[in-house]
C-alpha cells in the first residue's frame, strides 16, 4: 500500500519534470531566438540584450535547464511582456475564477448524474430509460462551447433571465453569473458520469453478495444505496481525476463565450498578443493541477479498492 503510494508520487514528480523540460525545449526549439520569442515582435534590441543576460542564454544548455528549474522552484515563472509583472502573480490571480467554475460545474453534474445512473440501472428496460440513453449520448457529443452559445442565446439574449457576460460581484451576483457557464460545462458530464455509474452498477447488481442481500428481503433502494453504490462510484472517482484536464479545456471556451475572467480567458488573450511567458506559465500551472488531481484520485481509488493498486 505505502509502496504503491510512493511509486505513484514519484511518477507524478517525474511527469512534472518532463513537462517542464519539454516546455523548455518547446521555447528553444522554435525557429528564431528565444529572447525574441519571449519578448514578442515589439521587443527593442536593449530589451533583448537584457533578457539574454537574464535568461543566461550565453551559458551551456544544461546550465540553462538548471537555472530554469531553479527559478520554478522559487515560484519564478518569468515576467509578463507588457506589464512586466511576475507571471505567477497574474496566473494565480485568474486561477480562482476557473477553479470555482469547474468545481461548481462538476459538482452539480455529479449530484445529478449519480442518482440518475442508479435509477436507470434499476429500471433497465423502460422506454424512458431508452430515451434518456439517447439524450445522454447527445449531451456528451455536443461540444460545450456550442452548448454555451445556445444557452447564452436562449436564456440571456432572448429570454433575458440570466446575465450574459462577466463574473459578477459578491456571492449572489456571482452565483447568478455562474449558472449558464456551469450548465454548459456540466451537462456533458451528467451524461458521461450517469452512463459510467449505470454500467458499473449493472455489473455489481449481478454479483453474488447483492443476490444474497436480495434474498434476505432488503429493499432494492437500500441495496443500491448501501451495498452497490460505494463500489459503483469507483470508476467515477478515477474519471474525475483524469477529467480535470478536459474540464480545464472546456473552461477555456466557456470563459471566452461568457467573457468571464480565468485561466482560459488569460491564455487566449496571451496567444492573441503573443505574450509567451503568460502562455507558458498557464501551461505549467494547469498541467501541475492535472498531475496533482490525477495522482490524488488514483490514491483515493487505491485506498478504496485494493485491486487497482496492482496495475501501475
Amino acid at each position, binding site marked *: 500500500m505505502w509502496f504503491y503510494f510512493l511509486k505513484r508520487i514519484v511518477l507524478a514528480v517525474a511527469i512534472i519534470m518532463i513537462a517542464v523540460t519539454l516546455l523548455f525545449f*518547446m521555447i528553444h526549439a522554435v525557429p528564431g531566438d528565444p529572447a525574441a520569442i519571449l519578448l514578442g515582435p515589439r521587443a527593442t534590441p536593449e530589451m533583448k540584450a537584457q533578457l539574454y543576460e537574464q535568461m543566461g542564454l550565453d551559458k551551456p544548455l544544461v546550465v540553462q535547464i538548471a537555472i530554469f528549474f531553479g527559478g520554478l522552484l522559487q515560484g519564478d515563472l518569468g515576467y509578463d511582456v507588457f506589464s512586466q509583472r511576475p507571471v505567477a502573480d497574474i496566473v494565480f490571480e485568474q486561477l480562482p475564477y476557473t477553479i470555482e467554475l469547474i468545481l461548481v460545474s462538476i459538482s452539480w453534474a455529479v449530484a445529478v448524474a449519480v442518482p440518475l445512473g442508479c435509477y436507470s440501472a434499476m429500471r433497465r428496460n423502460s422506454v424512458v430509460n431508452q430515451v434518456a440513453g439517447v439524450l445522454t449520448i447527445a449531451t456528451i457529443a455536443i461540444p460545450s462551447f*456550442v452548448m454555451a*452559445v445556445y444557452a447564452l442565446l436562449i436564456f440571456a439574449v432572448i429570454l433575458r433571465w440570466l446575465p450574459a457576460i462577466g463574473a459578477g460581484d459578491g456571492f449572489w451576483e456571482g452565483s447568478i453569473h455562474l449558472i449558464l457557464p456551469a450548465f454548459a460545462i456540466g451537462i456533458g458530464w451528467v451524461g458521461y458520469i450517469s452512463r459510467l455509474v449505470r454500467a458499473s452498477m449493472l455489473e455489481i447488481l449481478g454479483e453474488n453478495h447483492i443476490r444474497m442481500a436480495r434474498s434476505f428481503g432488503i429493499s432494492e433502494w437500500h441495496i443500491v444505496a448501501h451495498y452497490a453504490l460505494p463500489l459503483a462510484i469507483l470508476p467515477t472517482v478515477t474519471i474525475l481525476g483524469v477529467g480535470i484536464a478536459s474540464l480545464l*479545456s472546456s473552461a477555456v471556451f466557456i470563459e471566452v463565450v461568457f467573457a468571464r475572467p480565468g485561466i482560459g480567458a488569460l*491564455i487566449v488573450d496571451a496567444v492573441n498578443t503573443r505574450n509567451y511567458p503568460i*502562455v507558458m506559465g498557464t501551461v505549467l500551472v494547469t*498541467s501541475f493541477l*492535472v498531475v496533482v488531481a490525477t495522482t490524488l484520485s488514483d490514491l483515493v481509488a487505491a485506498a478504496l479498492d485494493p485491486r487497482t493498486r496492482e496495475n501501475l
Partner: protein
Amino acid sequence: MPSVEASHSEANEGEGLGVLRSVVQQLRNNRLGVLGVALVIFVVASALFAPLIITHDPIRIMVGPRLAAPSLDFLLGTDQLGRDTFSRTIMGGRIPLLVAFASLGSALAVGLLLGLIAGIGPRWLDNLLLLVFDTKRSIPSIIFALAMIALLGPSLATLIFVIAIGSVPIYGRVVRTQTRALRNSEYIAAERSMGASTTRIVAVHVAPNVIGPLLILVSMDIPAVIAVEAGLSFLGMGVRPPTPDWGVILNDGYASINQSPWPVIAGGIPIVLATLGFTFLGEALRDIFDPKLRKDL
C-alpha cells in the same frame, strides 16, 4: 468506415464480404447506428459536393442585406457582412472534416508505431514512452493546442499537427497494452521458437491484431476532433477569415448575437449534426466489434 475496409483486406475475399455483410446487418438493427450513418453521409456528402450545392459565393460580402432572417433566397439567412450563411455552412464543413481525417490518420500511424515499439521493445524504452505519453496527457488538450499555436502561428497545418499530437498518447497506450498481451501468447512463442524475426512477428502477427480495435477507437474520436477544430476556429486560432469554417461561422454569429439570432443558430447546427452523427456511428460500431473496448483505458 475504415474498420470495414481493414477487415476486408486482411481476410480473403469471401470472408471479407461476409464480415462486411454482417456488420451492415448489425448496423441496420441498431436504430441509433442507422441515424448515425445517415447523418454522417449527409454531412460528408454536403462537404464533398459543396460547390454544387451552394446558392451563393460563400466569401463574397453583401450578396444580400446584413443579418437577414432565413428566406427562400438565403436559406439560413445572412451574416453581419451580408454573406449567405447557408453557402458558408456547406463550404465550412470541408476544413473540419479534412482536419479530422488528416490528424487522426497521422495520429493512428504514429500511435501504432510508438505503441508497437513500447510493447515489443526493452523495458526501459517502454517506461520512457509511457512517461512521455502520460506527460502529454497531463497538459489539458486545448491549452496545449493554444500554446503550440502561439509558437507556430495559426494555420491549417498547425491545426492538424496539434490535434494529431493530442491523440497519439491514447492510441500509443492502447497499442502498447495489446502488444504486451499478445507478446506473451502461445502462438507468438511458437512462432518465435521456429526462428521468426521480431520484425516478422510484429508485422504479420501483432500489427493486424492490434489495428482493428485501434480503428474503432479512432472512429470514436472523430466527433471529439471535429469539436476541437471547431472550437479552436471559434477562438480565432484556426483558418484565417474569410475562409468559411463551422467554428468561424459560429464565432461570427456570436459577435452579432444581440442583433440577430440566426447566424448563431445556423452556425451551431452543422457542428451538432456532425458530432452527433459520428458519435452515434462510433457507438454502434463499438457495440458491434468490441463492447469492452473502452474499458481498457
